């Protein structure tokens, strides 16, 4: 089974976000970059599927600047077989559809049974790219997967939606997106890290995947980020004084009469 996992390099979730001087990007100076947490579940699941079947190939694909190669190496160290780095200055500023177009272009001619994503890229938080890749490649889509069974020609997935859980069946090939809880991602072993250095990591630019510079990046995108800003800072409010019984009474009173929210 050929499994392709798309990963995105993002700032660690413990990062305090600062805005860069251009007002459009985050200040990257003190950022620790990690594989987007949901993408780690996708990598782990791909490895488990391959191990379960005893055969297959796991390819990790990432679009991003030079530093994204580190995340691809990490995925190889976890056990992926090969990596593809989509690297071109022309890709910068791509919105979700343009990104989906680039990712689809990169894999459409590679054998693929399953295309795995994390349910969202932590950071831009859009959850659009998996659905768009599915649409571009004409494939079915199941997102937010918390449990997955992979047969030979179909998968059965369990997922959580608002106020319910769903069981979804779908044929292979398919685009699948992982939710937290799907598995426990492994840490790369020392042996894995050593082996990763020798595994193939291919770099592809826009021309190599048949996309013109005009179609890619901010220029090729239908939406643009004008600016980034920090949310208005909240002020610390009242600390209630008194014994437990007292403060409980005060709080209910304040919420009812002052804030008028209960």
């Amino acid at each position, binding site marked *: 089974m050929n499994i392709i996992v798309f990963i995105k390099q993002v700032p660690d979730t413990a*990062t305090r976000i600062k805005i860069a001087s251009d007002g459009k990007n985050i200040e990257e100076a003190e950022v620790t970059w990690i594989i987007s947490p949901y993408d780690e579940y996708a990598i782990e699941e791909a490895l488990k599927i391959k191990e379960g079947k005893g055969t297959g190939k796991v390819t990790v694909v990432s679009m991003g600047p030079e530093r994204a190669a580190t995340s691809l190496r990490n995925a190889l160290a976890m056990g992926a077989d090969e990596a593809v780095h989509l690297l071109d200055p022309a890709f910068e500023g791509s919105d979700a559809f343009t990104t989906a177009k680039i990712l689809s272009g990169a894999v459409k001619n590679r054998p693929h049974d399953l295309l795995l994503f994390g349910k969202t890229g932590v950071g831009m938080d859009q959850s659009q790219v998996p659905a768009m890749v599915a649409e571009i490649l004409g494939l079915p889509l199941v997102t937010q997967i918390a449990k997955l069974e992979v047969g030979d020609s179909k998968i059965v997935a369990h997922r959580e939606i608002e106020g319910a859980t769903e069981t979804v069946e779908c044929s292979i090939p398919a685009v699948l997106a992982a939710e937290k809880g799907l598995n426990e991602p492994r840490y790369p072993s020392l042996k894995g890290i050593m082996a990763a250095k020798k595994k193939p990591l291919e770099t592809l630019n826009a021309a190599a995947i048949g996309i013109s510079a005009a179609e890619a990046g901010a220029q090729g995108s239908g939406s643009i980020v004008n600016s980034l800003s920090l949310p208005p800072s909240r002020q610390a409010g009242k600390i209630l004084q008194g014994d437990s019984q007292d403060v409980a009474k005060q709080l209910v009173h304040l919420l009812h009469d002052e804030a008028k929210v209960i």
Partner: protein
Amino acid sequence: MEIVVFIEVRDGVAKKSSLEAASEARRRADQHGWKVAALLVGSPLEEAAAKVASYKPDRILLADDALFASYSSQSYSAALAEAVRQENAHTVFVSATTMGKEVAARTAAKFQTSVLADVVSIERDGNTWKTRRPVYSGKAYAEVQSKEGAPVFITLRPNVFSAGAPDPKAKPEASKLSVPIQPQDVKERVVETHKAVSETVELTEAEIVVSGGRGLKGPENFHLVGDLAKALGAAMGASRAVVDAGWIDHQFQVGQTGKVVSPVLYIACGISGAIQHLAGMSSSKYIVAINKDPDAPIFKIADYGIVGDALQILPLLTEEVKKLKSE
């Protein structure tokens, strides 16, 4: 019809967040002299259509066919694309739910464009839309603008746009939408749905959220959070620490790798306020923090703070709330 709004129907009922989207569409259309078409996909749709009518779209489109009885992103996006084409829409509103995000993204891709996703405010600027959306789970906000060229797909964050007052007398014309799709085109299908067995409300749609963290000492005490939530008619949430410790299921996690919520009232019990947690709830209107440690970061953003043991305070609070509700 210039705005098409996609209405999510679950168990024959139109979702509240879709009614918010319908109301926002109505407000925008009134400002600019546009018309609104509301699309419902599913089967049956009668009850949902009656509800949607009261939110005053100019027209209701019903994609009511056995094929739509269970959800598939393929069939539902085919319906939305057909509605957008038929109505020649320049703007499409969808609520940013699980279904909404999938359907909007798939449909937008059919039109070779992106979605302005999960926005919390929108503004018309010439022939484009300027939107604001949280990024990094609310640690920052991005202003994102569409370029010229129709249609523009926008998903609206649930619980942010007001649903407005329904008018039970409104009687928009309703027509059936025929969607050019065959059963064999649909390769995924929902075979089973289990409604969450929960006495409380869905986290992302709740007006009030009561969350618990490590200060509760153990899973055996988590019912104290549930008790207060129940008394308030609130949803229950949890910090990542207790989810990772296995005290409670991941679906309750609030924060950067869980749910992002913006209720009117958020009560954090025994939660210190790690950055990734604050990211998931700091846009709540009112925040209450109960924590033993007076230096816990959660107090820096709380409107009302109680320095004390959540295990002691919670039962007392629940009692006080019950008293208030019975008055």
